[in-house]
């Protein structure tokens, strides 16, 4: 059933999206403020369950691409994401019936809601990453045969660019990255235009609802003075992200970051409250692998989330600081993201990791 998303749900949604960002995805705050403004002016957003879409409905996802660090300083004019959508509609000669997130983690959970509020289009409760990933081809849409292009990119001066690389989504990523740099390091995009049938076949369903439920669970756990992680575990048990495992509790003892080929790569080290056991997290914008005392305990595409020790507020890799007290959890991803075809696009080997993918619920069998 379709439902209305209003102002009072946005803070929970942003918190949940930060968790699904698995350390990256950009701070959803600017996105939340944008949506708040748009909902204040235009009213609540209609969210469609993917099963409600007609097979021949036309869906154009919208997103931000580039450096979240730029977005916190150069805030959009507000016209760009709708301009990207309109440019793609004009190019394709067909109007969208709905928009949709390409990524449910971080700031990109919010951009389609902003577009929906401004245009009156509904937004589909699904996305193509099921979390956050650093590159545009890392989409279940791409894995299961939906071409990313033609795509449209828009900047704050009213300019737009159409990129068409046929079915080559990696090349789309490479060219659009270059255009984004010229636009000042962040841009707004419309891509992966597809039919309702394709959404049902290739998207991770109900991830907006999931982010909202996750954000609400953490808040309620805190408000009721119960363990927010336990509430989170119960909430996830009823979804396609079934398993939550506490991987580690401890303090940040070292953070190392460097920029390589346009990404923040690095590692963070944690020491357990007992003073002996250690956790090492490796990341490329998002967390990739968690190793406790030499053993892999969670690996991409499963989610590795660093939560503030007391409040369970998600912490991004940029927000990691020496001395923070944290709980690190692993969350299982849906089956659609764990097939051999999916792992070829965003599995461990795509990030230069030698370790094969093993589901977190097998790596850490017992819920502690």
């Amino acid at each position: 059933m379709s439902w209305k998303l209003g102002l009072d749900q946005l803070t929970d949604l942003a918190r949940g999206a930060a968790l699904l960002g698995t350390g990256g995805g950009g701070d959803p705050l600017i996105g939340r403020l944008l949506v708040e403004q748009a909902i204040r002016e235009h009213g609540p957003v209609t969210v469609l369950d993917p099963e409600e879409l007609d097979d021949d409905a036309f869906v154009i996802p919208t997103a931000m691409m580039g450096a979240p660090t730029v977005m916190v300083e150069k805030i959009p004019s507000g016209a760009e994401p709708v301009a990207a959508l309109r440019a793609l509609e004009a190019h394709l000669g067909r109007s969208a019936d709905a928009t949709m997130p390409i990524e449910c983690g971080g700031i990109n959970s919010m951009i389609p809601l902003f577009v929906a509020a401004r245009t009156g289009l509904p937004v589909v409760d699904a996305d193509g990453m099921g979390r956050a990933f650093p590159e545009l081809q890392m989409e279940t849409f791409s894995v299961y045969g939906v071409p990313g292009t033609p795509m449209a990119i828009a900047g704050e001066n009213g300019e737009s660019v159409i990129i068409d690389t046929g079915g080559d989504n990696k090349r789309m990523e490479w060219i659009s990255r270059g255009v984004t740099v010229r636009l000042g390091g962040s841009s707004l995009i419309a891509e992966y235009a597809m039919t309702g049938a394709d959404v049902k076949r290739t998207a991770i369903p109900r991830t907006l609802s999931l982010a909202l439920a996750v954000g609400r669970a953490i808040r309620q756990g805190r408000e009721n003075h119960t363990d927010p992680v336990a509430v989170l575990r119960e909430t996830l048990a009823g979804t396609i992200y079934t398993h939550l495992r506490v991987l580690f509790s401890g303090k940040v003892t070292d953070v190392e970051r460097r920029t390589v080929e346009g990404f923040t790569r690095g590692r963070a080290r944690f020491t357990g409250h007992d003073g002996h056991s250690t956790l090492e997290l490796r990341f490329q914008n998002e967390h990739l692998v968690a190793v406790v005392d030499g053993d892999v305990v969670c690996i991409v595409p499963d989610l590795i989330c660093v939560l503030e020790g007391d409040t369970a507020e998600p912490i991004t890799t940029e927000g990691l600081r020496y001395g923070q007290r944290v709980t690190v959890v692993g969350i299982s991803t849906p089956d659609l993201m764990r097939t051999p075809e999916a792992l070829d696009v965003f599995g461990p080997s795509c990030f230069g990791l030698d370790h094969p993918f093993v589901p977190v619920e097998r790596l850490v069998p017992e819920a502690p």
Partner: protein
Amino acid sequence: MRIGIDVGGTNTDAVLLDGSTVLAATKASTSRDVTTGIVQALDALRAQRAFQPGELTAVMIGTTHFINALVQARDLAPTAALRLGLPATASLPPMVDWPRRLVGAVSGRAYLAHGGHEFDGRHIAELNEAELRAHAADMAAHGVRSVAISSVFSPVSNEFELRAAEVLAAELGPDVALSLSHEIGRIGLLERENATIVNAALRELAAHIVDGLIRSLADYGITAPLYLSQNDGTLMDVEYARRYPVATFASGPTNSMRGAALLSGLGTCAVVDVGGTTSDVGVLSGGFPREATTEVSIAGIRTNFRMPDVVSIGIGGGSLVRETADGPTVGPDSVGYRLTEEALVFGGSTLTATDLAVAAGRADIGDPVAVARLDPTLVKAALDRIAVDVADIVERMRTSADPLPVVAVGGGSVLLPDDLPGAGGVHRPDHFAVANAIGAAIAQVGGEVDRVYAIGSGRREAVVDEARQEAVDRAIAAGADPAGVRIVDFDEVPVPYLPGNATRIRCKAVGDLQLPA
């Protein structure tokens, strides 16, 4: 000799220091006009230890007056926010995320204009002086008395904020104060802009208070320079304080921790400041408070100030003690300032934490006979409860397996035992009740850089050196003794997805204030 004064919401504390030796210390009530309380404190110091005004080399004041004015929404000037960044940024105009009540309290007006920079220094749009003059005319027509100017990526280039300030100054005249965001905050447009608007709204109050402070010291015959302490434990001179009142916002807990460091002789330690209602626990590292990593919201306004990382629990000298089936509980409710009426040792009928300390022989406060008949088992169990709760917070603030010494300050620190479970001995320095005034007196001066650099191949060291040198130069320009300036904080964060290895570098240098011999 120097004098440190801490003007809190309730008490005005003052100390007279020679080097790091405390010659006199006093605690008085804060007066409504601030200055009367300061004069009383000076009188009290002089009564303890005679000094000639000419012997003083500096007077340092820490105050929560400005943050209280914002929280209580009083004495705020009609303020405009001018942002340079069009066509970008229009989606979220200035003050968009403020509580309506505060927008009203500052009669806030938001203006957007062309300008701003990209991360690499390119212009988003050129400045349009005619547009700025039109905005200035509208501000004048609406009685604006203070203006905050922000420009996109002004920490990278301050060019547009400076030019816009010139245009506005020419249009609005010298009576309208201008606050520029690149001088106040870091990267993060909304947070920096918010801090700048708050600063602008406090400018008139700052001028009033600073004039009052200068006058009351002059009336006292004191000609030594006057400084105010800032959020990060460094000092600013009065002219700077007149322009940047917002920089005093977190000075209270910072001064208390820095004072504790001096009194205990420990540079790295946990500081437990036990007041009447709460205990605040912070960590000093190398003599400076560890900073909070989460965003700091003040009176509902998001900012990116650097604030000390402090965890508070509801245990203080006035905390209520109750007996339950599971043993005694302490706090979080407190009799607060009514301690001297309600506590048993003051003839009242409420069992407070202070009564426990007196009964256990840890403190000599009020009438010990009033607590002589308390059950010793209850007293011990309740004091153990306090020790365990405080020790738990200290434990959570620890960042390594190394032992972290604990320093107790504040009037309520008599509640703590000599040994905290798991944390070892508690240092209880002399003059612990006025640690905050001492912290103000020993503050240093600092300089800071926060900017995105494009680091070319093989250029990293040169860029890092450049950033460090700029921080050092800024500290010296602020009055630091060049001989002792050192880098106390350095943080390098790569900016993803940008070419040229774009990296955000934050660097802070501090040194002792250079005082005339």
